[in-house]
């Protein structure tokens, strides 16, 4: 049974290889093949899941060792898998949502002549992501980690003819590389500390290591997480990543890949537990991003960018939770899963809307779409309710728990974090309501697109709507299924461990508070966007709004400091290399040449000059010999 684990990765990987190397002859069936293989790994996952449920909590960790990867003296890197409850959760999420999005893409990418390749990339992503979550050591995890980075690069830049897409892809990869730097340094630190980097040997012995080292490792892991999960300060790529096809945004930049950071931190929980400072750093990053993303989400008129901001903010919640330690791990993952459902659903909805609107993304050019695409409206609406944490829907359970946990952290820290979390909830409610209103309610504000053809919105084909419906179900019930009776808690506890914090405020109060802020947020949004018509062109807006529209200016910062600075640096270095490093050498050669030129002038053709030099030479030699003797 355990030997099936490898197949989880193998199936989609096979798909990727076949589709990418297969050539045009696969164009017709390519998308089906890809979908089938993605589904296959979901099935395998399900089978393993069932098998796992059948076992007791303690033997629920499956392992499979394939071969020794890099056997070098004192350095053992193996290709081996470890499938425990945590990994299993991810496996199901990834392969499940992944399959749905494959199906969705069949319709969405119908008219793209490079659809085969698209599915190849999707499969590649699924394979890499699965590898990431079932690897049994950090180095192999790193492979998956970069693998998803590559897939994300390829998919963001899928429409390479658009320079913006290519640039966005490059940006994403580079920013992620910065994070990867952190991961690799973390691995090196583990190697020098523990002499290995396999989960099995690092995590148990983590507590032996000095706190200083653990903090260092933790911070490096955090850096990695920031890169992959678009957390401040490495969040800048996520917004641009929306250049990619919408299914990609749904799968990679909402449901799965961006949550890899959370996985990494929760997986390395033991290390963080022993390194409080690192944990604090994590919570701070989470909290900041939470607000950052939310604020950005409020200002964007591009529906996908707005959702991207929300994603950032939601992952902020997860990171925050993960930073809280044992009291938060489970809820981080729980929110991650529920978020996977409703955010994927929302994105697919957005995609469906764009599909009907000639790929128009500006919400100010939407409006009143609920009549035209009812299914989309319904599913999107459910996702909306879920994310703002409407009681009973999945978002409610997971987010609520995180806020509780934040308070439970205790002390001023707890108050601050809890407050931030609450505030975030309010803002979430505001911007999601805003999106909802601008898109589906109000007057219709459509315009002819660039090619001048009138958009006539219509419901998307079944291949697209079905996944949306399924996800909508997920976003409605997942929370309940997990939350009620702490099922999810019990399921994960053996891996992550769990602790009850001593919350200064009771759970009920927190829930109540959440409800209040929720209402406030929705209310404000209604006041602004619901009561009066939405202007088709964005008003200038307050300073904050304008800043938020520009991702709070941090992109400009990057541009000025990093891009420009880098350009200047390289240009000056090229100059230095040419003039200085090379110049020295050429200079030497030139000077020797000059010397030669001057010396040869002595050879002036006059025999008497030659005689002089001989005579002088003889004289010098005589003098020298005598001197030698004299001294």
């Amino acid at each position, binding site marked *: 049974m355990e030997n099936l684990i490898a197949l989880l990765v193998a199936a989609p990987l096979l798909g990727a290889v076949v589709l990418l190397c297969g050539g045009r002859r696969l164009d017709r069936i390519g998308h089906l093949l890809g979908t089938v293989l993605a589904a296959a790994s979901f099935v395998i996952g399900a089978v393993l899941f069932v098998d796992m449920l059948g076992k007791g909590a303690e033997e629920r960790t499956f392992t499979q060792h394939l071969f020794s990867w890099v056997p070098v003296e004192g350095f053992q890197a193996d290709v081996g898998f470890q499938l425990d409850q945590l990994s299993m959760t991810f496996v199901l999420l990834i392969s499940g949502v992944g399959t749905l999005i494959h199906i969705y893409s069949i319709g969405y990418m119908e008219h793209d002549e490079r659809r085969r390749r698209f599915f190849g990339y999707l499969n590649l992503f699924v394979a890499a992501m699965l590898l990431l979550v079932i690897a049994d050591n950090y180095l192999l995890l790193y492979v998956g980690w970069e693998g998803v980075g590559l897939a994300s690069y390829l998919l963001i830049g899928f429409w390479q003819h658009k320079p913006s897409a290519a640039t966005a892809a490059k940006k994403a990869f580079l920013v992620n590389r910065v994070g990867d730097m952190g991961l690799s340094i973390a691995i090196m630190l583990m190697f020098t500390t523990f002499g290995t980097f396999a989960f099995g040997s690092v995590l148990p012995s983590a507590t032996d290591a000095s706190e200083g080292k653990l903090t260092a490792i933790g911070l490096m892991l955090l850096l990695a997480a920031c890169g992959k999960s678009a957390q401040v300060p490495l969040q800048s790529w996520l917004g641009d990543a929306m250049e990619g096809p919408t299914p990609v945004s749904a799968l990679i930049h909402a449901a799965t890949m961006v949550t890899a950071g959370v996985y990494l931190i929760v997986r390395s929980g033991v290390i963080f537990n022993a390194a409080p400072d690192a944990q604090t750093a994590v919570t701070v990053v989470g909290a900041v991003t939470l607000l950052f993303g939310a604020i950005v989400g409020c200002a964007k008129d591009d529906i996908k960018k707005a959702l991207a901001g929300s994603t950032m903010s939601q992952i902020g919640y997860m990171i925050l939770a993960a930073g809280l330690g044992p009291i938060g791990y489970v809820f981080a993952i729980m929110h991650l899963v529920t978020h996977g459902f409703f955010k994927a659903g929302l994105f697919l909805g957005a995609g469906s809307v764009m599909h009907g609107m000639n790929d128009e993304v500006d919400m100010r050019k939407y409006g009143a779409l609920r009549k035209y695409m009812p299914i989309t409206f319904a599913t999107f609406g459910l996702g909306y309710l879920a994310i703002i944490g409407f009681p009973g829907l999945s978002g409610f359970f997971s987010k609520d728990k995180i806020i509780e946990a934040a308070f439970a952290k205790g002390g001023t820290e707890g108050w601050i974090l809890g407050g931030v979390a609450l505030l975030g909830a309010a803002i979430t409610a505001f911007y999601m309501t805003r999106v909802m209103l601008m898109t589906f309610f109000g007057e219709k504000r459509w315009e002819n697109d660039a090619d001048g053809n009138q958009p006539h919105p219509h419901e998307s084909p079944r291949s697209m709507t079905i996944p949306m419906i399924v996800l909508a179900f997920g976003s409605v019930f997942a929370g309940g299924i997990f939350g009620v009776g702490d099922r999810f808690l019990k399921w994960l506890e053996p891996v992550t461990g769990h602790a009850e914090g001593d919350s200064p405020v009771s759970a009920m109060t927190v829930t109540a508070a959440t409800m209040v802020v929720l209402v406030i947020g929705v209310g404000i949004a209604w006041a602004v966007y619901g009561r009066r018509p939405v202007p088709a062109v964005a008003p200038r807006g307050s300073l904050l709004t304008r800043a938020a529209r520009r991702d709070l200016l941090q992109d400009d910062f990057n541009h000025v400091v990093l891009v420009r600075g880098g350009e200047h640096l390289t240009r000056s270095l090229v100059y230095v290399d040419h003039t200085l490093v090379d110049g020295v050498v050429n200079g030497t050669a030139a000077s020797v040449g000059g010397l030669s030129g001057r010396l040869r002038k002595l050879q*002036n053709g006059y*025999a008497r000059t030659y005689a002089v030099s001989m005579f002088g030479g003889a004289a010098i030699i005589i003098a020298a010999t005598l001197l030698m003797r004299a001294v």
Partner: protein
Amino acid sequence: MNPVNYLYLASLLFTIGAAGVLIRRNAIVVFMCVELMLNACNLAFVAFSRMHGNLDGQIIAFFTMVVAAAEVVVGLAIIVSLFRARHSASVDDASLMKL
């Protein structure tokens, strides 16, 4: 009389000859200066021969003269042909090749 004086004289002659080689332009004269240097050597040889009381020096002197004669033969041939070609026996005019 101190035999060293002969040596001084020889050196003097040698230096005069050398100086002539360095300053005179006419190839013939230069050549004569070289001959003068050779003769300076001869003087030295003879003087030393006398000093050491063996005949080697004197014999060498004869050899030197023969060699000098041979040099004259070769040298004049070359110089004369040069002179006929250029109508000038100045060593400074003979400077086609330089640098």
